[in-house]
Every structure is written in C-alpha cells, then in structure tokens.
C-alpha cells in the first residue's frame, strides 16, 4: 500500500453568482514510503493548492468537488477536524516558504516547539524540552540549548528556516510537505537547507513532497517529478528521466529555457506567451496556444495522462537528441 494516494482530485472556487472555476482539474499522485517527489510549475499552476487539498486545508469558499486523498489507508477528505489533527502536523508535517510568517513572533522558539509537541503527545514539559533541543541539534543549530529562549527575530533567515524544519520533525512524521522552502533565502542558505532536508529524509526514511519552481533544486533532491500546468499534471516520472529526456513540450521548453542549457551569449530558448489564468482556459490542452507542436486535436480535446505524459504529440528521446 502506498503511503499517500491522490485520485482525480478537483478543487473549485465560486465565480460570480452560480459559476465555479477549477483550480485543480483532476490530479493523481502516488507516493511510496520514504519517496521524494518534486511538484514543479509556475505560479497559478495549482502546486500549493494541491498541498492544501492533501491536508484538507482548502478554505471556504473553495471546496474539493471530486476525488480522494488516502494516507496510509485513511481517507483524509472524509475525516472530521478532530480526526485529521491526529495526522496533520503529526504524521504529515509542513514547511512553508517564509519562516518569518510561519513562526509566531511573540513566542520563544522553545515555547513554540514544546507547544507543538504537547498538542500531539501526552508528555511532560521537561521531556518536550529535551526532545526539542534534540531536534534543534539535528538541524545543526549552533548552541541549541540557549537558542530555545531566543525569539524568531533574533535569528537569521537560514536559522529561522532550520527552526521551522526542526518543528516539522518534532513528531517524527512519515511525510513532509515543503512548499517553496528556500525561495525566500539566499543561494548559499538554500544549498544548506536543501542538503539538510535531503539528508534528514534519507536517514529517517521520511517521504517528501517538495513544491518548487526551481528545476535545479528538484534535480538535486527528488526521485520523482510531477510537472503541473493550469491545474493539471502534464508530465510525471522519474526525476532523472524527465530532466534528461522530457516528453511534454512544456517540460521540454522549461528545461531548454534555462540559461545553463544554452551557449553563452546565444539567444535563450523562450516559450512564447504566458500561462492562461484558470478563469480563462483555452479549450482542449491548456498548453496548446503556446505549443509549437499543437494540432486541431489539441485544440479540441484534453489529452489524457498516458505513460506519464498528457500530450497527443509527446517528444521522443530520439527527436530530442536530433534537435
């Protein structure tokens, strides 16, 4: 049994008096125990929406209109708030983009950690304190014991994100969902934090869903990729396979457009146009207006996800190398 299984997930928001727009339009996902998955896409593609939907955190007026989320055999979407709290923040932890927003500015680090632990475990404050220091040490925070009394504003951005990771690890989760965990940080700090997350996941057999727009980070950290576009998964598969030989024209374009994949001074490959807003999607494949391989078929109907690609005219490995 997989650790997490998402089937045909749809999320919709009301628009106008009667209408609805779909932010997620049928997403499937299977994550095995200890597996690391990268969810890649541009802003508005539905990556964060997917994370929120998995955790049953879609706020009114949005709602899940269809589909299921199963975690270790439990149906998360059908659970009461009380039941899901045993899983969310406990067996599934979250790391968000901006540590300054995640942490409470008026509580010390120690207080926030102890509070989190006591919410999920019936243990003494002394024991919670000991476990918290242990986790701060695990994420390589210097002089962890004295940092327990520090407030978030007293720490640098990198250390703050380390504290957030320590909090996420407190309950020994089986799955961590990290939503752009390093986007607000500098490159050297990003490298530190991502290598830390990678090591912790490997050593403790923790599964990871890493949401990001950075293909380099995904290539470094994950084993599988899911590329999202306009609320749908357009390509999914092993990270190495997709980075080396992407099949969906959008994935091909994203990789080709990276400066490191272009000769110095040469014109960069560019995908024309921009992603359509979910309120105004074209018919058929949502990518067809920007796609150089599109045909009438693409304009008429949405290609199904077959063998990891949702495209009528996927690139093949041979075609890719011939170019």
């Amino acid at each position, binding site marked *: 049994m997989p650790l997490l299984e998402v089937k045909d997930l749809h999320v919709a928001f009301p628009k106008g008096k009667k209408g609805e727009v779909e932010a997620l339009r049928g997403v499937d996902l299977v994550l095995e125990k200890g597996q690391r998955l990268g969810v890649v896409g*541009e802003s508005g593609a539905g990556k964060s929406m997917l994370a929120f939907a998995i955790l049953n955190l879609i706020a009114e007026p949005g709602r899940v209109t269809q589909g299921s989320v199963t975690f270790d055999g439990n149906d998360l979407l059908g659970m009461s708030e009380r039941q899901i709290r045993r899983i969310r923040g406990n067996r599934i932890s979250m790391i968000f983009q901006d540590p300054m927003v995640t942490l409470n500015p008026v509580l010390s680090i120690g207080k926030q950690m102890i509070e989190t632990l006591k919410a999920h475990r019936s243990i003494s404050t002394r024991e919670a304190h000991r476990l918290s220091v242990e986790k701060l040490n695990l994420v390589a*925070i210097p002089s962890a014991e004295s940092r327990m009394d520090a407030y978030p504003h007293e720490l640098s951005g990198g*250390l703050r994100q380390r504290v957030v990771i320590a909090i996420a690890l407190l309950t020994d989760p089986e799955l961590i969902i990290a939503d752009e965990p390093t986007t607000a940080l*500098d490159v050297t700090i990003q490298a530190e934090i991502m290598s*830390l997350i*990678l090591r912790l996941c490997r050593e403790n057999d923790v599964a990871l869903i890493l949401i990001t727009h950075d293909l380099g980070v995904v290539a*470094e950290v994950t084993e599988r990729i899911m590329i999202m576009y306009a609320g749908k998964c357009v390509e999914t598969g092993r990270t190495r396979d997709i980075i080396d030989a992407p099949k969906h024209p959008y994935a091909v374009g994203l990789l080709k*457009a990276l400066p490191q994949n272009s000769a*110095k001074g040469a014109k960069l490959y*560019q995908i024309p146009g921009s992603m359509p807003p979910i309120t105004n999607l074209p018919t058929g494949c949502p990518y067809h207006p920007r796609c150089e391989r599109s045909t009438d078929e693409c304009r008429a109907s949405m290609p199904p996800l077959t063998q990891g690609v949702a495209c009528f005219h996927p690139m093949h490995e041979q075609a890719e190398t011939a170019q």
Partner: protein
Amino acid sequence: MTESASSPIVETRGLEMRFNLPTHFLSREKPVLHALSGVDIKIEKGETFCVVGESGCGKTTLGRAIMGLLTPSSGEIYFEGQRIDTMDEAARKPVRADMQMVFQNPYASLNPRRNVYQTLAEPIRHLMPEKSSQDVRAQVEDVLDATGCDQSWQRKLPHEFSGGQRQRIAIARALVTNPAFIVADEPISALDVSIQAQILNLLNDLQDERGLTYMFITHDLSVVEHFGDRVAVMYLGQVMELASTEAIYRDPKHPYTQLLLDAIPSLEGGSFDAPREPGELPDPVNPPPGCPFAPRCPIVQEICRAERPRLRPVGDSGTLAACHLAE
C-alpha cells in the same frame, strides 16, 4: 578627468555608504551600518557588468548610489568622465536621462493609477522638457515597438498585465529617454521561469541594437554566466572578486566565490549530498576587523582575522581578489 576612448562609462572611487541607525535611549553609542565600504569599480562602454552577492551585501545600495537615488557618505562617482555625485539637481537632469533603472518587482515599480502612456511619457516630460508633445508621442510609440509591447497597451493600466508584460513596460520606461547606461536590479527574479528567458532575450536584443551598457544586479549565478561580461562578487559592502565571467567560472580565486558557485543546484544532481555548515553574514553594524568573510571561510588563517585584504591582481587572467591567501 577627460574623456578618452578607453575611459569607462561609470566609475566609482572609494565609495562608502553609512547609515546611522536609531540610538538606544539608554546608550551613548551611535550605531552605524556600513552598507558600502570602499567600492572601486569601472564599467566599460557596451559591456554587461554583473554584481552578485547575497542579500545584505550592498549590491542594491551600489546600484542606487550610482543612480543618484542615495547620496554616498564619501567617495566619488563618475559618469562619462564627469563627477556626478556632487552635481546639483539642475546639472544632473541631462545625466539622469542618460542613465536609467529597471527594478525587481514590476508589481511595485509601476504606478497602478497611471496608464502605460502616462508612465512612459513622464520621464521624457521631466528630463527632456524641450520635447514637443508630438515628439513625446513618437518616442513612446518607438519604445513600445522596441520592447515588444503592443501599441494598444497605451491606454491600459498596470493591473491589466501579467508579470512579464509589466516588466516589459518597466524596461520601456527605462529606455524611453534613450539612455546609454541601465542599472537592472534583479529584473527577472520576480518572474516565472518560462517568462525569465523572454525578458533576458529582450535585454540582450536591446543591448545589441542600442549599444547599451548594463549593470546587472543579481543573486543568480547561472544568469550571470550566460549574460555577463564581467562580474563583481560582493560581500558585506566590499568587492571580494572582480573578474571576467569566463575566469570566475573556470578559476574562481576567492573562497567566497567558490562557496557561491558550489551553492548552485545542478541539473545533474549530487551536489547537495554533502552536509553544509550553517553560515551567515556577520553583523554589518559591527563588522569583523579583518576580512568580512573570515568567520565562514574554510581556509581562514590568523592574518585574515587581523587585517582586511585589499583587492589585488591574482593569477594571469586579470582577476582581482580581496583575499590574503588567493594565488
């Protein structure tokens, strides 16, 4: 200084920028933040000069000081041989038309209540008051064409555009007075991946067509490698290494440059496997006495903690590095 064929378009000499921080009510100390401490750079005509470094290194402060948006505490700034930091506003106006800036966030840099025409006409009206309204109109139309904007955008407001389109408008605004020099401060980092290539290509094309000189401020080294001619690596208000792009990537001399290069995630993977120690910028209010990078440096020696290294030639590729140990 007289203008000659080899004179740089922009030059700073010993540029310092200090900000006085609020004094604590119980303390006599007057804390001072050193945002720039002695920056000497020369930007040659027609080149793309990249300034890289992490947040807080002073790269944006340097760009703003050159543009005259901040007044330096000491030091000199020259533009085409004229000293500009001491000019009064009237004398500076024609210079301002010659140097323009593109900001990071096109959602914040465009006035939401002005339509595109008003936004683009403003710099001409202000900096070139002699232009007739026909000239203004013609110039706006030209620049819209040059930057790939549609003429129908003129009467539209910023909220009607996507991020990439807004950044095109911001670039058009910077170009409308026909400047020779543009400071672009992280012009693509707020944009989506598929849009970044569009904007980089546009900047490249404009440089070819108009012979522009760019000062490109960024934290993204993969962009620098593709786009830059020369690079200044900054740390805590100082230039740590100054070299051609090619030399920086082939043979970085400063340990900080090496650290930055090692931090780039690679599509091949594998470079995040080794654990990394937490590092952070020293406090810019109380910088360490020697090399500012010494607390993080893997090859630090006694001398680094005592004496601040000066930029000096290292190796034979023309690289300058501020490191006692580089060779």
